[in-house]
């Protein structure tokens, strides 16, 4: 593992630990390890949504402001 890859891996592990701490989730070390292994793929999938071609697109959901009013 080169130093850049090692740094990224360490950053990912740190991010997972912090995100679960913020959410108040505590889990077994083995489960945390599994989450850390899958996290780079989850992050890459989310990051792909920020591609430039979607930059000018409207939000996909609408709401009806009349709901709940008689």
């Amino acid at each position: 593992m080169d130093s850049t890859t090692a740094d990224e891996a360490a950053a990912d592990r740190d991010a997972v630990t912090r995100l679960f701490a913020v959410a108040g989730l505590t889990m077994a070390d083995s489960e945390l390890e599994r989450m850390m292994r899958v996290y780079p793929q989850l992050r890459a999938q989310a990051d792909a949504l920020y591609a430039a071609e979607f930059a000018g697109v409207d939000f996909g959901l609408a709401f009806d402001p009349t709901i709940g009013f008689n």
Partner: protein
Amino acid sequence: MDATIEFTTKTTPPTIASAAADLRAGAITSAALTATMFERIDAAELLGAFVCLTRESAMRAAEAADADFAAGVDRGPLQGIPLAVKDIISTADAPTTANSRVLAPDWGGGIDAPVVTRLRAAGAVIVGKSTTSEFACGLPDPDKGFPVPRNPWNPEHSAGGSSSGTGVAVAAGLVLGGLGTDTGGSVRFPAALNGHTGLKVTYGRVPKNGVVPLGFTLDSIGPMARSAEDCALLLDVMAGADAGDASSARIDVPVYSTSIDRGLEGVRVGVPKPYFFDADGLDLEVRDAVLAAIDLLGAGGAVVSSTTVEHAKLAKEANAITMVAEAFAYHRRDLATRWTDYGRHTRMTLGRGALFSAADYAQAQRFRSAFRSHLAELFAEYDVLVTPTWPVPAPRIDSMASEDNVTGPSFCGQWNLAGLPAIAVPCGFSSAGLPVSMQIVGKPFAEATVLGVAHAYQQITDWHRHVPPDLAATS
């Protein structure tokens, strides 16, 4: 008349349509049919199809249906028909558990969800609550005390999920139909793996109040049955707005069961080859069976051509991000305080929601908008798109992991993200004897079209009529 009806797995269990005809002809009674279903359910206990059976209320409903027939009262084709209800849908005569130790025991308030009310008003007989993946996600955890659903074609293999129990029960002839829910494929996945028909409806087509939510903007309740015709008969009763569900659509409901005999002539079928037919992880037997099915559609008069669904893989991932984010909002408090009360696979899936940001969720909705616009353009050229439903035949239960849905391909979630109707239709078997399924996708609220294409295919094939080997002897 005999107390039960003679059919074995050597003969095809009746469809809703055929049973409805037999009931009206006086050839069978609902009480006898329902008693037969309970005998088969008991004999097939190893399949883990049901969390709870409602024998007394079901037999009362069956006898009431028979009394109505005798009095000349006909509530429609579901009168006297035994059905299963997925155990995340509230019913008055049984608890709703979501197959979880976390859900409050009194969840649902002991009343029927509107979709169940509609089925009962149509004279249907609810035989019990069918197994679900916990909270409609994850995989079974045998340590939590709920039945582990097993594939009736090979009990060592998965029944799919999350509407596992209804899928198993329909395939094994334990009921004639039932309800599932679908957020990323949960009606179509078990339909594909167990070898029957299952329809994911347009978002809002069926009211979903009274259902434990998974993904608020993705969830739908869909019919599961042996044939497309039976799904249409169920949807005739299920569809339509309800005041208690703001997301249910105020759009006219056609009579689906009388609009499916439209044939294939001139139907424009798009076959999105990239991703759906070449993704890493797609089983070649599945691919070839679906391509053979498409050839039959063409031979039947459909106009078939290749096309491309742009960003299909990203759409699957955007659906997953949306689902876990929305589910995490619902479960966060319990995950923080009762982590180990959740099943070992469920908590790993739901916990991923903590790993996405608010901006990730918002950006997934922006992508969703772009994806829907692209599909709207595509559906100007096509009436339906056809893909494999699931990339592989049923895997072994002990080979599955909660990470599979992150790393592997999926051909279902795209349509939840876009809110479109999609039906799973049996189209063959693998060399190991496990069912294979094709998926037919349509425009918003074009359930009649996808049901019509599926029905036409089922008029020229009999894959949906195949039944698993008799499991009673091994139980």
